[in-house]
């Protein structure tokens, strides 16, 4: 009962002004946690998808689910952690490269993570790495040994495997 679990919610909402504020203030108002948050339009312009990572015990997770559902502008809530799903996140990492040898090493390491170079300057490289949480954490760990100058993450996006409605 008291075991904390990480859950990913996919929240389909009306693509209207103020909807995100309603979702977020629900979390702050009731003391729920948001670990990561991603919002964007879907293929249907009238619908936005919020992908929200949170944690809590089973009772809290149930409350989060029910309270999200209670918001008028929420069309559908899916607890993706309840089934098999795929999840991805993009991280941009700016790594310091003060000499050529270090740069070569960084580029090789990036390859291991299927990372892409999206900018290169004499003293720094910006890499893009895509993956699930484990992969990104591993990449960030390794690159931090070279010195990370800046880092930005998109927050997770996720969907159920297989055909859904």
């Amino acid at each position, binding site marked *: 009962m008291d075991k904390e679990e990480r859950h990913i919610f996919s929240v389909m909402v009306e693509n209207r002004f*103020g909807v995100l504020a309603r979702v977020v*203030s629900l979390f702050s108002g009731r003391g729920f946690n948001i670990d990561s948050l991603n919002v964007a339009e879907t293929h249907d312009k009238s619908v936005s998808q919020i992908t929200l990572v949170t944690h809590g015990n089973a*009772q809290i997770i*149930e*409350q989060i689910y029910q309270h999200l559902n209670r918001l*008028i502008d929420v069309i559908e809530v899916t607890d993706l952690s309840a089934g098999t799903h795929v999840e991805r996140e993009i991280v941009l990492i700016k790594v310091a490269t003060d000499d050529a040898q270090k740069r070569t090493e960084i580029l090789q390491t990036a390859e291991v993570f299927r990372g892409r170079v999206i900018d290169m300057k004499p003293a720094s490289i910006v890499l893009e790495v895509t993956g699930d949480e484990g992969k990104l954490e591993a990449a960030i760990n390794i690159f931090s040994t070279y010195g990370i100058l800046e880092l930005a993450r998109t927050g997770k996006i996720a969907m159920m495997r297989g055909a859904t409605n």
Partner: protein
Amino acid sequence: MELSGAQILVDSLKREGVEYIFGVNGGAAMPIFDALYDENEVKLIPMRHEQGASHAADGYARATGKVGVALATSGPGATNLVTGIATAYMDSIPMVAITGQVFTDFIGSDAFQECDVIGVTRPICKHSYLIKDCEEVADVVAEAFHIASTGKQGPVIIDIAKDAQKNETLFQYPETVDIRSYKPQMHGDPAQIAKAATLIKEAKKPMLYAGGGVVLAEASEELRELTLKTQIPITVTLMGLGAFPETHPLAMEMPGMHGSCCANYAFTDADLIIAIGARFDDRVTGDLSKFAPNAKKIHIDIDASCIGKNVQVDVPIVGDAKNVLTELNKLVDTADIDPWRDQIQEWKQKYPFEYEQKGNKVMPQYVIEKIYEHYSDAIVVADVGQHQMWAAQYFKFTEPRKWLNSGGLGTMGFSLPAAIGAQLGCPDDTVVNINGDGSYIMTIQELVPAITMKLPLKIFIINNMYLGMVRQWQELFHNKRYSAVDYHDNPDFALLAQAFGATGLRVEHPEDVEPALLKAKGINDGPVVIDFIVDEEENVFPMVPAGKGLGDVIRGLS
């Protein structure tokens, strides 16, 4: 013909069958007030403070079951509505609050009397709309009324920019409302209902626990049927009083902090609790770890997020109480629980609500008993505090929508404006406002519209010259350090009533209580205020101290 947004708003309210709008005028709402100026169908009731407007709309809704409507200007007008909106939200009262907003081009510029009302009210309303275009008005009003009055009811805000009020367009009111993201679950799952019936059959010590949701769902008849058919003892919460007649032998009266010992002991001993439209509020359960330790729980509620919020539930049933009870009633029979019923009767007889007469003081409970004797059919609107608890304990409600009070938010100042709304909504009923000396003065200005409209309100102040409930806690838990609760400097409320233009009476002796109440009965051309000067330090008992279990109820100080 093209109409202004303000006119469309008023015409839309007509389509929703709105009889009254309670409001206070101001800059950003002037076009709406202008449209109401020569309007006969939707009557504008000017209040003296926006808080009064929202409480009046709320009181109207509680008494009638219809949506109450409040109207205010932007900025301070809107923020003054907030307490009333939060009050309605906590008790799930259907309300539409309309606020004027500055011109669209000024929004976000910190313009004069600008306030982000949508932001301010976000956590205290069911939904909200900002209208920037007059084209949206009709659709928004239709949606707002639909949302406010269906599912778990609650307040909806319509914030409308001044240019959207002034600009003109064609009026076309939607015939139906269909919101794809809003489909309240009205019918309970039959399998769950069957499970509930089985638990009821197997229980040896079952009890019914009904709350305000039964009143809101108009399910009192179905609740009565369930209770009478099963002969299971029932406790009805502060919010539900009247959903089942308190005078019936199966009624254990109100549970919780100041509830009956019988109901609280029953919770502690029960093996099955059937909760209907009640939310296991902390004022009902006391210390959750000690609450109903032996009981399985069936929880019927329209709001899925309410189930499992405070206690673990064995059989959750999401649905409208009226529908669910109708189905459940088909599956249940008289419960074979004679020893349990005998136990309940024993507790009931052993621990009734009681008080001691102190010398020649006017005891507050005595005043309530006498009010009950002479106004048993009235709609009683109580405020918040000791008088509210005494009224709940000593007035025996037998019908729903006859007891109105702010149970969830506990808003002092609620009752006088709410009584105005109730009286307008139910012109043939006698409306009794039981108030406290602390709460009365919080919204006393609303005596003015009551007098102007000649509303025959019976305003009875249980005046102990203290913020009594807080004083009680200070006596019990703060070594009698009476910080900021001494109200001996209040004005003479009888004289003050006269200064306002109402009838004002002052009662200081027990023998004068009844004659004053009888006199009030005869005054029907306006409000009558009776200031009952009662024993100053009488406490509300029984009492379950905060943080204690229901079994630890204090029956009295002696």
